[in-house]
């Protein structure tokens, strides 16, 4: 139980990068970008192939991010210059990327990374040299959890990386360019009248979004030990689920709060999935169905809660009014007698 939750947080933090990308396109730019399903695999494929061919994991990951950025820019170009509807632009790019990803992987649909040095193998060995896992594990044993994780390095590295990306995103969205980007998602007509090139901003925004998605893909591939042509299917929904769950639970008061919520949402999503998979009746193949149900539930629950709160508030008001009326009536009668 603990180990599976530990794993869920670990991978959740890596998927959070993808969710931040989806937040950029879906929320900030108001652009439902389905490129994500393809660019996630692009990130995985580029990094896996480069690592297999002897590149350093760092170089491989950086190039994967650039590939994702390029893919996103193409979606942006199709939408802005080709004047094609955002949803369709994303779908077209997603389909195109499927073939491109197979080409990147040299025609194979799966590139294994067994016994290759990845970002995580270097992190793990670095971490073990610091001998830091033992104290954490002894704390766990002290509180009665005997099954301790093999390393804490991956968790801390993922946490650090995700937080760094979060802070950069927060800062970027407050810069002059970032403000213009947010205004593009909010009111295009207005920001055009303030001399911002909305086409350029959309291309940049979708590019950055997919760069994050590809980074997530590259890291997931290295952590899982393979890149697979099908690993991106439904990724946009997972991203959306993370954004929606996070926003519903942690709120959207400010940018910093919202990005934190998105990360939280990604982790919670992973935990819910791993809990669901512990139910005997459910199989790995049911994952997508579970995801869909989680998203629907996350979308409906806040509305139901809100309307129940409203109903209770109205009932209370009416009762107060009725009480006031009876006391007044009583007082009148007293006065009459």
């Amino acid at each position, binding site marked *: 139980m603990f180990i599976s939750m530990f794993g869920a947080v670990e991978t959740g933090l890596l998927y959070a990068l993808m969710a931040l990308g989806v937040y950029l396109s879906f929320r900030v730019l108001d652009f439902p970008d389905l490129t994500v399903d393809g660019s996630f695999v692009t990130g995985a494929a580029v990094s896996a192939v480069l690592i297999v061919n002897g590149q350093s994991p760092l170089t491989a990951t950086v190039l994967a991010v650039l590939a994702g950025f390029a893919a996103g820019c193409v979606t942006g170009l199709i939408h802005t210059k080709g004047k094609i509807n955002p949803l369709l632009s994303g779908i077209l790019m997603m389909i195109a990327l499927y073939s491109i990803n197979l080409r990147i992987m040299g025609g194979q649909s799966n590139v294994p990374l067994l016994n290759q040095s990845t970002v995580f193998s270097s992190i793990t060995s670095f971490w073990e040299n610091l001998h830091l896992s033992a104290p954490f594990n002894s704390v766990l044993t002290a509180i009665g959890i005997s099954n301790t994780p093999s390393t804490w390095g991956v968790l801390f590295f993922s946490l650090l990386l995700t937080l760094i990306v979060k802070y950069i995103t927060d800062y970027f969205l407050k810069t002059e*360019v970032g403000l*213009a980007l947010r205004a593009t998602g909010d009111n295009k007509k207005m920001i055009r009248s303030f001399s911002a090139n909305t086409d350029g901003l959309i291309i940049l925004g979708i590019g950055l979004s997919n760069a994050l998605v590809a980074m997530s893909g590259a890291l997931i591939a290295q952590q899982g030990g393979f890149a697979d042509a099908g690993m991106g299917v439904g990724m946009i929904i997972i991203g959306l689920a993370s954004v929606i769950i996070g926003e519903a639970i942690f709120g959207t008061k400010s940018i910093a709060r919202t990005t934190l919520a998105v990360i939280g949402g990604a982790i919670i999503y992973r935990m819910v999935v791993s809990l669901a998979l512990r139910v005997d009746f459910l199989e790995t193949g049911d994952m997508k169905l579970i995801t869909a149900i989680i998203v629907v539930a996350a979308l409906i629950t806040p509305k139901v809660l809100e309307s129940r709160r409203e109903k209770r508030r109205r009932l209370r008001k009416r009762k107060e009014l009725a009480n006031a009326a009876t006391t007044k009536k009583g007082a009148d009668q007293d006065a009459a007698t």
Partner: protein
Amino acid sequence: MLRLEQVSLTFNEGTMDEKSALQDVNINLDTGEFLTVIGSNGAGKSTLMNVISGSVIPDTGNVFIDNKAVTPMQEHKRSQMIGRVFQDPMAGTAPSMTIEENLALAWARNKKRTFKLGVNKKRKNLFQEHLETLNLGLENRLSAKVGLLSGGERQALSLLMATFTEPSILMLDEHTAALDPSRAELITNITDNIVKKFELTTLMVTHNMQQALDLGSRLIMMDKGQIILDVSGEEKQNLTIEKLLNEFQRIRGEQMANDKAVLG
């Protein structure tokens, strides 16, 4: 400052809906002039605005701002020189962003947008100073979301955002039409103050004849895509609604069709 030369534009050419929106329109506006444009619906007022702002390209003719031909320039490049306030109070601001962020967006109009913070201490003070001139107390609400402001407040903010970078041209597109009378008067007064303060070359479209008479140094009346009346100086000062309507009848040989233009 602003010059339109023989600008013509036809919509849906060759179909049943063919409509000549602008016919050989010539305007020459000097620096600091305040032009009000009146006319009934479909007279070509909005098209005129769109041709100047660049969201519509004319079939023939040229637009010059500061003696530069801007006709081939893209809308967002052109808008470095043009401040605009729209009829819809929702249109001129970004609702999910704060007052200070909106002002920062406007502040960057004639500068290159960088990767530095859009709102800093120095700018906050500057924004506050400008907001104080509106007398609406907005200077104390810098971090409030603009979506929470009332229509009048948003329109006042839009007006400030459009003007405080002192653009070459200010275009007001029936910017008080969606407000109640008292708010409309407030915005009209703010407009008057701001235009005088920054000595802006201004072009205001309005349905409201009284407003067109009260504001501005020059008035043109449009009908069916043409300028049919152009008065300025003392002649404009002495104009009344009655005179305007008579003038329209004399030129067009028919009554002005739209009551809204009279009463609105």
